[in-house]
């Protein structure tokens, strides 16, 4: 039987060139009609340090980076020691024989990447040798790689004439080395070529596109891993009349400039990570208080404080919902896939405009770096909303009444004060308890405009359910499929609309005997919130800086369903 799914991982020192091999390998296969997904993790330094990047290729759509490895490519002894345990028993380990020897491993195959690259006349083609060798081992046809090379370096004026034949030569040398070794993992099944157009991008790029489609025309941000690439994309693309994107001096400057811009009528967004979210705390309170629409993208990383800047975690959920002191409940949308990053960004801007307040789009490091092919969005069918604008000509009271009201735009009639202090209908400061009650109720009542969040569910008759959030969706769903296949009666729920939760979803969850929440934090933040809502929820936690593993989730759900609650917190 031909293979339908495999995972390859490159591991070594940052700067060894294998990142381009992994992403190139994924893109080449995606171009051929397969589904591809990458995953990368590295230390917080400019060059070097233990780094790995992997690509998963499948004939079917997939949600996660996969589990055990079919092929591991290593570039130093440390990487070999660190990752060899993740290789399937019948998998292979390719090592750079210029740099190390793995003599005692029967699965080991040495290839001198650099030497072979130099022999093509292009010493920078080592990553092409790697791609060729890999393709040979897992049965990816040579034509797929050649097509990728022709597309990638097709601009002769820019890259010259030599590079395409050199790269193809390098790939061939890699493939031949693999063939000579006698190792093979068999052939890859033909792809189920999608009948729709596709794009290939990572989560941060998908968020950026979603924001642009939703009409964001003011962006201010401060560099911070792993959110920086959103700022860079915005600065490159939000140009021209009525567009502004700029790197400002701090997250405090960013959030407050968003408030000013949105007050003036712009659709405003910033992107940050945990430390920046902390600095934006007071500003988010002002946006809630003065009813100013804006979106903060928080690409989560390990925390608290500086934490793990380049590792993944889902530990900002509680901060995102109540980022500020005082009575506040900020709407939160947490995409779980690259595709959802696009639609989640559009939804976040729409929500902000609709209820006139701040919204947090909660992404995470693993999504920010994950590249994959997704269906190209049909922009015409993705609805964009705009705030209700005051169009009268005098005597308007901006904050009158217990519900949402139209927002005046400076330059037009309807002057008012957007006030950080508690205020009366004109926006002037008040100390009256009755006004505070009225305005607090008004602010919370607007959340009722956001009850249109959708959710996924499956096998809903089961008494026990699984409901992960964010990027834990992928490994959890694959675990769910395995559990069901093994005969477990378990339900599946998932939504990216975490605050407010879709009311019907909450109702269903309350009916369950147990809701297991796989999530990447120590506290079990989503299950904590669900318990507060009356759901019998428990978390399956992990806080290693890496995404959940599919088999781990299978094992832990099985244990929990079979036996009583485990005391203490397990990693």
């Amino acid at each position, binding site marked *: 039987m031909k293979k339908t799914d495999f995972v390859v991982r490159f591991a070594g020192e940052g700067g060894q060139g294998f990142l381009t091999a992994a992403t190139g390998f994924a893109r080449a296969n995606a171009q051929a009609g397969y589904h591809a997904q990458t995953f990368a993790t590295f230390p917080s330094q400019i060059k070097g340090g233990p780094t790995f990047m992997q690509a998963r290729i499948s004939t079917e759509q997939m949600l996660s980076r996969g589990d055990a490895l079919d092929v591991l490519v290593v570039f130093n002894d440390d990487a070999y020691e660190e990752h060899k345990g993740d290789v399937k028993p019948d998998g292979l380990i390719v090592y750079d024989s210029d740099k190390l020897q793995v003599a005692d491993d029967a699965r080991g195959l040495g290839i001198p990447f650099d030497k072979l690259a130099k022999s093509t006349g292009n010493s920078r083609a080592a990553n092409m040798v790697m791609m060729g060798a890999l393709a040979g081992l897992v049965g990816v046809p040579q034509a797929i790689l050649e097509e990728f090379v022709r597309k990638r370096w097709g601009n002769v004026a820019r890259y010259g004439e030599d590079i395409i034949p050199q790269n193809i030569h390098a790939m061939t040398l890699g493939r031949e080395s693999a063939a000579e070794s006698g190792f093979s993992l068999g052939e890859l099944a033909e792809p189920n070529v999608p009948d729709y157009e596709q794009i290939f991008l990572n989560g941060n790029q998908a968020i950026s*596109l979603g924001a642009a489609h939703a009409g964001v025309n003011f962006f201010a941000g401060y560099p911070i891993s792993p959110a920086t690439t959103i700022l860079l994309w915005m600065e490159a693309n939000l140009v021209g009349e009525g567009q502004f994107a700029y790197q400002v001096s701090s997250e405090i400057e960013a959030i407050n*400039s968003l408030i000013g*811009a949105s007050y003036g009528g712009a659709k405003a967004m910033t992107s940050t990570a945990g430390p920046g979210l902390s600095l934006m705390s007071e500003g988010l309170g002002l946006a809630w208080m003065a009813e100013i629409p804006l979106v903060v993208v928080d690409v989560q990383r390990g925390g608290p404080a500086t934490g793990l800047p380049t590792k993944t975690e889902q530990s900002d959920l509680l901060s995102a919902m109540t980022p500020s002191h005082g009575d506040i409940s900020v709407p939160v949308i947490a995409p779980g896939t690259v595709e959802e990053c696009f639609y989640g960004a559009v939804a976040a801007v729409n929500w902000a405009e609709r209820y006139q307040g701040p919204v947090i789009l909660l992404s995470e490091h693993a999504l920010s770096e994950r590249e994959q092919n997704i269906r190209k969005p049909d922009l015409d069918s993705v609805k964009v909303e705009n705030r209700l604008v005051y169009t009268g000509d005098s005597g308007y009271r901006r904050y009158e009444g217990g519900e949402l009201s139209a927002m005046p735009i400076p330059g037009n009639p309807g002057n008012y004060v957007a*006030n950080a202090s508690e205020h009366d209908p004109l926006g*002037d*400061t008040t100390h009256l308890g009755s006004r505070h009650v009225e305005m607090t109720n008004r602010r919370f009542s607007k959340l009722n405009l956001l009850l249109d969040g959708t959710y996924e569910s499956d096998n809903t008759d089961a008494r026990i359910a699984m409901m992960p959030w964010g990027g834990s969706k992928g490994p959890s769903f694959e675990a769910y499929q395995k559990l069901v296949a093994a005969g477990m009666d378990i339900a599946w729920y998932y939504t990216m609309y975490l605050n407010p939760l879709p009311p019907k979803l909450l109702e269903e969850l309350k009916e369950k005997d147990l809701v297991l929440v796989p999530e990447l934090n120590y506290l079990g933040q989503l299950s904590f919130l669900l318990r507060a809502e009356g759901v019998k929820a428990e978390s399956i936690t992990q806080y290693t800086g890496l995404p959940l593993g599919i088999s781990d989730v299978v094992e832990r759900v099985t244990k929990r369903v079979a036996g009583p609650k485990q005391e203490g917190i397990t990693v």
Partner: protein
Amino acid sequence: MTEKNPEYDFKWCPGCGDFGVRRALERAIERRIIDTEEPVESNVVVAGIGCSGNMVHLLEGPQPYGVHGLHGRTLPIAMGVKMGRPDLNVVVVAGDGDFLSIGMEHIGPQAQRNLNVCVVVMDNAVYGLTKGQSSPTSELGMVTSSTPYGKAEDGLNALRLYLTLGVSFVASAMSSKINDLADMICQGMDHPGFSIVHVQSPCTEYNDTYEDLKGSKRKGIEPKAWAIEEGHDPADMAAAQEILDKGGVPLGIIYQDEGRAPFEERIRELHGRAKPKTVPVMVDSFTL
């Protein structure tokens, strides 16, 4: 209690310098409406927190738009308004605590960008609203509620700070000289770039400096405030520095550089080098 909103009950103390600043600001806005023939709604006043921040609620006459934002964050909010809407006239009102203590980090970046807003700083060298603590401009040794044995820090020379940071329009005024102050605010609003009008606006409750500023022949007190001579060329940085070297409180426009492009023009010019893309084109840039 104001005429326009009986519910609003904040009051400045009798004799507060901020009354004079309010009158001057009202005049400057009225003059601008006439000069530009734009509606009052094209003006946005951004305030911080402190006695000065209540300016947005207490303004009489034609009513501009207002933001009464966070303590120290007037400039970032003003930047958002101005860069999102370059057509609007943006005025910042802030106190010395708001602008020079918690908010000081924001002055430098806006000076480098030459953000096209006019800032009116009301300096009373004390935190009035929280009942009399020391501020950056309180002098060394000054006894306040938070410096019971005297202030250990030197008083900040705000005007020198503005020049050092590269603010392109720096003026110094006194709240009781309303006509002069209104003129300076008008010139600050007209200045194509970042302008600061730093106003001595005494707090009669916690730091009454009227006598120090104006002097008293009877008590033999020399006035701290002095008018900058008519021949001063504000474009001359060396002359501006000499004015500050003389000490006291100079009154008038100290420095003005009209040759630096304001932020919105810089962005417009830089963006002119890029080709704006439609969203479908942006999406297609990720085609497999």
